[in-house]
């Protein structure tokens, strides 16, 4: 009886894993196919679609934009989010959770609504659309993740180590840089990587707030809409490499598990 139910649950687990991962795995596999059609049987492996990606004129500017935006978003939301997390950790629990819920609202909203609301706002206040407006928009939905992750670490943080540094004559800033930061550094870096992954992955909000120009996802969108080439799979694999890669490192650093 028990052995049978174990087998059933095992099958369910495998089914879940296949459902979650197979589309992603197929995308990666088909970026190395030698044919134009993305289907079976795969007749041969080649790097031709990766080569085609490299010579696609719009690829390099889009790649550069994605990296610039991702790094800026990581940096800004790490600084801003860490400050907020420290502030919230020192507040009464109830108040902190209300503020946190408010700051998380932009994540709850459908990205389309956020994107078009930001677009009409930027245009109305005469802010020129471009990389800066994308970065601002991304920080808005990335900072709640940084706050959540760093806050989870800060509430387990023993305030006495900072107090003893202060008693020994350290200024608040000195205490932060010599005591607090070294302890929470891995978590902050991990949270920054998550912010970067979210930013590089975002399509909808970027699409509405970038004006002209491309990031990798908006380039992929253009290519999908104008006709399929497996070069899309190569760029998609690159996006996955950047986002899932940084998430994996982040999970190692933060030990954050939900």
């Amino acid at each position, binding site marked *: 009886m028990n052995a049978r139910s*174990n087998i059933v*649950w095992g099958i*369910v*687990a495998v089914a*879940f*894993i296949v*459902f*979650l*991962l197979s*589309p*992603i795995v*197929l*995308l990666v596999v088909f970026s190395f196919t030698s044919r134009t*059609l*993305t*289907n079976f*049987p795969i007749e041969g492996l080649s790097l031709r679609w990766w080569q085609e990606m490299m010579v696609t004129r719009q690829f390099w500017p889009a790649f550069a934009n994605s990296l610039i935006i991702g790094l800026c978003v990581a940096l800004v939301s790490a600084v*801003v*989010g860490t*400050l*907020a997390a420290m*502030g*919230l950790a*020192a*507040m009464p629990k109830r108040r902190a959770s209300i503020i946190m819920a408010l*700051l998380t*609202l*932009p994540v*709850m*909203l*459908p*990205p*389309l*609504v956020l994107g*078009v*609301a930001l*677009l*009409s*706002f930027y245009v*109305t206040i005469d802010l020129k659309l471009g990389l800066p407006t994308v970065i*601002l928009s991304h*920080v*808005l939905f990335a900072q709640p993740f940084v706050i959540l992750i760093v806050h989870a670490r800060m509430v387990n943080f023993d305030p006495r180590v900072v107090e003893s540094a202060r008693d020994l004559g350290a200024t*608040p800033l000195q205490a932060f840089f010599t005591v607090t930061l070294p302890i929470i550094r891995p978590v902050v870096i991990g949270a920054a990587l998550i912010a970067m*992954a979210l930013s590089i*992955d975002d*399509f909808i909000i970027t699409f*509405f707030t970038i004006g002209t120009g491309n990031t990798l996802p908006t380039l*992929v*969108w253009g290519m*999908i809409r104008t006709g399929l080439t497996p070069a899309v799979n190569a760029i*998609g694999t690159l*996006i*996955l490499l950047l*986002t*899932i890669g940084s*998430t994996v490192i982040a*999970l190692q650093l933060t030990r954050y*598990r*939900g």
Partner: protein
Amino acid sequence: MENRSTYWLVAPSALIFAVLFIAPMAFFVLVSFWQVEYFELNTEPTIGNYRDVFANYWHVMSFTVAVATATALLTTLLGFAFSFLARFRAGEWAQVLLFIVLITLFGGYLMKIYAWKTILGNEGVLNSALMAMGIISSPITSLLYSPQAVVVTLMHFSLPFAVLPIYASMRGISDSEVEAARDLGAGRWPILSTVIVPRCQSGIVAAFSFVFLMVGGDYVTPLLVGGKLTMIGNLIAPQFGAQFNWPLGAAMSIVMLIAAVVVIYLFRLLVALWSRQ
């Protein structure tokens, strides 16, 4: 002194939130009461856009709510099953399952939808694999560009968002609670229904809300795998591009958000009722 500096630390985040969220959303609500005339915004307040939404786009709106409700229910159910598996049945494999959910959470929104397009197409992965194995002789043409394709794709990218809140609340249930119920003679189903589900209420509602909102506003999935299917997002997006009718687009968005709040509230009542019996 110490206390005030605590609030200053939150100030940068709060400023970003106020300037880039509160202000744009307030403006967005305002715009929904304006009108476009000759490609200019007329700021005379009117409820004409809302009347327009109810008169002309009602079927798209109700179709969207139906798809979002179905997807959110199914995904929450799957998310619950996954969380149950990870929490109570998987043992040390729980870490692996959770890891997979987390890495699929943060990456590949557009690529996942695109992958389903290549999987379900006539000359796609599924049909070609089935034909190569000799199971079918001609492609099943109804896989792509159907409501089922839309729902499966939406479920795929929203499942991780459903798992996390439910798993988080399941982690709060101790093994001893479940054992106590079993010792008192409760069978498997009663334990699930009267012990586990009530303890996961907030997680279940959060999962449903996440998925419903994400799906209700999605326009990429219907475009890529839905064929002629139109969801409200497909009507909203062009209002901010080629069609240039911000007020109408804003009104559509707000009606959709209000519908979402109503459905989520009803779902919450349902879960609370279940838990009370």
